[in-house]
């Protein structure tokens, strides 16, 4: 067995040199918050640690764009943006654990805010990547409207470090809402689905809507100081129920407190904290991310032996924890419903399939891998058995 080395570049040049100067296979690692997700990384010759690639390169508040090194923890970025009244509209649970921007893109992660703003693929507008042969390539740019050339950021989104290393990214930002509040309803999943239909069928524009398996539907509303109370009242009337959680104080005071990042936001709001905790999974269980048409989600979840669930009733995306021996059947059930599934955490030494049946375009995926990394240097094992 070869001696495994760790490379920790601090800028684009040293990143490129690290790839070029290293022979053999390379595992790409950020903060490690998703190290165990997807297929298990095979034994590699070197680990490329991106956590030295940090810092904002340019923030243009007037343009609401920011470019930064991909190893920057998103939490840190949000702290830097907050005084400008801006943020990245993205709230995956592991942001609070220090997940890097590059890692969040590579793993196609997203949180409840995906209902409105999508995942990182929808927020990243430019990338600089380094390929396994040392080629440095850029796509996109610093403007949100841009159709020049192929969108390489999309290709890297969900690639789990198998196609290239993200060196720098450009993100589009949004104004921080002036005020946020959450309506909580204690109900079963079936009842939650009915409430969700009412909410989505009306003019309520929820910022997030998730059911969690302790029996709570959480509906987040964001807006202005002046209008939010009236909107909440109207929503509560339409639903005929709901407890108002954590109506936040006026914006100036809130903004100061908000600098404490998503982690403290989660602490402040116990219900969303529980949501994030369930997304992270539990010891002894396998955690899977699944996505199906929203209307099919309750039925699919009812068929699974889940211990815990977070279910995005508007997005169709759920995170479930279940016994490891149910993973294979879960892939099959979700696939049969026309959805997608990927294994996240699993107990140590447990060998269960990370991916369900391959997509119809698997030949293209393999061809892309062969073009960008013909020697298979990056992330061996991550897409077993697909490629």
């Amino acid at each position, binding site marked *: 067995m070869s001696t495994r080395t760790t490379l920790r570049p601090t800028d684009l040049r040293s990143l490129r040199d690290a790839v070029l100067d290293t022979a053999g296979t390379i595992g790409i690692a950020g903060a490690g918050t998703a190290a165990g997700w997807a297929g298990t990384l095979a034994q590699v010759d070197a680990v490329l640690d991106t956590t030295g690639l940090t810092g904002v390169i340019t923030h243009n508040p*007037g343009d609401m764009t920011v470019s930064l090194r991909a190893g920057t923890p998103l939490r840190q970025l949000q702290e830097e943006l907050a005084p400008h009244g801006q943020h990245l509209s993205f709230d995956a649970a592991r942001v609070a654990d220090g997940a890097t921007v590059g890692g969040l893109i590579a793993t196609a992660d997203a949180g409840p805010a995906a209902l409105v703003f999508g995942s990182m693929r929808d927020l990243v507008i430019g990338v600089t990547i380094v390929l396994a042969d040392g*080629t440095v390539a850029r796509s996109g740019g610093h*403007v949100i409207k841009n159709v020049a050339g192929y969108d390489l950021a999309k*290709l890297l989104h*969900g690639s789990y470090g198998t196609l290239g290393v993200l060196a720098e990214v450009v993100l589009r930002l949004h104004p921080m809402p002036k005020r946020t509040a959450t309506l909580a309803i204690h109900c079963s999943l079936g009842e939650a689905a009915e409430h969700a239909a009412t909410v989505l069928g009306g003019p309520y524009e929820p910022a997030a809507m998730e059911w969690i398996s302790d029996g709570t539907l959480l509906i987040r509303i964001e807006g202005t100081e*002046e209008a939010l109370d*009236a909107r909440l009242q109207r929503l509560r009337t339409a639903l005929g129920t709901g407890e108002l959680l954590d109506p936040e104080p006026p914006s100036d005071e809130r903004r100061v407190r908000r600098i404490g990042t998503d982690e403290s936001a989660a602490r402040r709001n116990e219900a969303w904290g529980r949501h994030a905790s369930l997304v992270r999974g539990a010891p002894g269980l396998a955690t899977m991310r699944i996505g199906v048409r929203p209307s099919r989600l309750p039925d699919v979840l009812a068929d699974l032996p889940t211990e815990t669930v977070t279910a995005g009733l508007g997005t169709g995306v759920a995170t479930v924890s279940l016994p490891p021996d149910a993973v294979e059947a879960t892939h099959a059930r979700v696939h049969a419903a026309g959805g*997608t599934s990927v294994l996240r955490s699993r107990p140590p030494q447990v060998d269960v399939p990370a991916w369900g049946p391959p997509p119809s375009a698997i030949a*293209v995926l393999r061809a892309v891998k062969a073009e960008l990394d013909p020697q298979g240097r990056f992330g061996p094992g991550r897409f077993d058995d697909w490629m």
Partner: protein
Amino acid sequence: MSLDGVVRRAFETALSPEDVISDPVRCRSYECDGLTGYRVIPQLVLLPRDAAQVAAAVRVCHEHGVPFVARGAGTGLSGGALPVADGVVISLARLKRVLEVDPVDRRAVVEPGVTNLEITAAAAPHGLYYAPDPSSQQVCTIGGNVAENSGGAHCLKYGFTTNHVLSCEVVLPDGDRVTLGSDTGEQAGPDLRGVFVGSEGTLGITTKITVRLLRTPETVRTLLADFPSIAAAGEVVSDIVAAGIVPAAVEMMDTLAIEAAEEAVHAGYTVGVPAALVVELDGPTEECDVQFEQVKQICDRHGCTRLHIAGSPEERAKIWKGRKAAFAAVGRISPDYFVQDGVVPRTRLAEVLDRIAGMGTDAGLRVANVFHAGDGNLHPLVLYSAAAGETERAEKLSGEIAELCVELGGSLSGEHGIGTDKACSMPKMFGADDLAVMARVRTAFDPRGLCNPGKVLPTPRLCGERPGKYRPHPLEEAGVIERL
């Protein structure tokens, strides 16, 4: 070269003989898209009736090495659907069924020949709509929108085609039919759908598209505001953004564009003012009311000379009709014009417009401006007279404006695409390695290079030589090469 009998018969078998057009006169109808300066008559035009026939036609192309170009309504403005002389055009005009509108899951499944506006029309009875709305939405097709990652006035708030396409059924260049993307925003593995959207028809042909639908906003409020200068209007946009307001749309027009639009549709614009803004807010009524007041105050603060608030849906439609008619309307004030499409960071709008004005003066040509101010997407219209021999000067100015956008940190294209028109400018925006990696991605999808060749990425032929009527290659003129 002409496609011989064997290949033609193969196409006739794959479709039916009457759906294979070989008459050069009829083929001529397909010689260009909305960018009429580039014209190439294809060998054959194929008119498949469904996805299976598209796949069968592409398989024939693959087997016989025939280059092919997909075409929808032909409204593209960058020569993206320009035929290749030794190839075929595959028209998707007959694939125009709305297959499904699902009000519960808020999505629609449509064929590529459905127009953008038809999707919204199909969704409207359910209180839903399709958000990306190019100005040509009445005629442009969703297949073309997917190819170009089209935008429109409302994309600042709601995103672009790529943010609204959940999945595409795609015929790959070898004739295989696959699905890219999934039923949700969630994905397993690299986002091939995201690479495909905006690839300008170079990675395959989409035959079925699942799009997200949004709930029709409860309230829409629109105003038209005149300003004493472009700079003042630009400051309004900045202040709206700084106030944390994300408008549904912010459009700006300059004197020439206003004049043209008003002459064409009498939308109530003020002829002669230096700049006008169309600002639209939408969402829950309570939020709209609060933010609309703020926008009005911001307009007043920057010397707004006239503020017209649409008092009815009809008035609102009229304001938009003027804005959306502006391109075509320019034909009323100039015999010919080029539509350019570039993007700058929003904060550099005043600077870029100033420089464009200077470049126009230097070139002795007028430039009208109508653009998406919220996202910095410019559409300078370079006015000229072909009869007066101004064509080449205008074309040069138009190209220089696009490259100026790159110099200011922007992009060569915000929504029209690179196509044939700007492939040769791509090296101004991207380095050789960037383009080489994009070419590798293209090769992964299309190893034989048959799918819409010559578009997006620069090729020696394209950049030295204009398609269509013979013109000497610059290297020929220089005596470096000769043509046999």
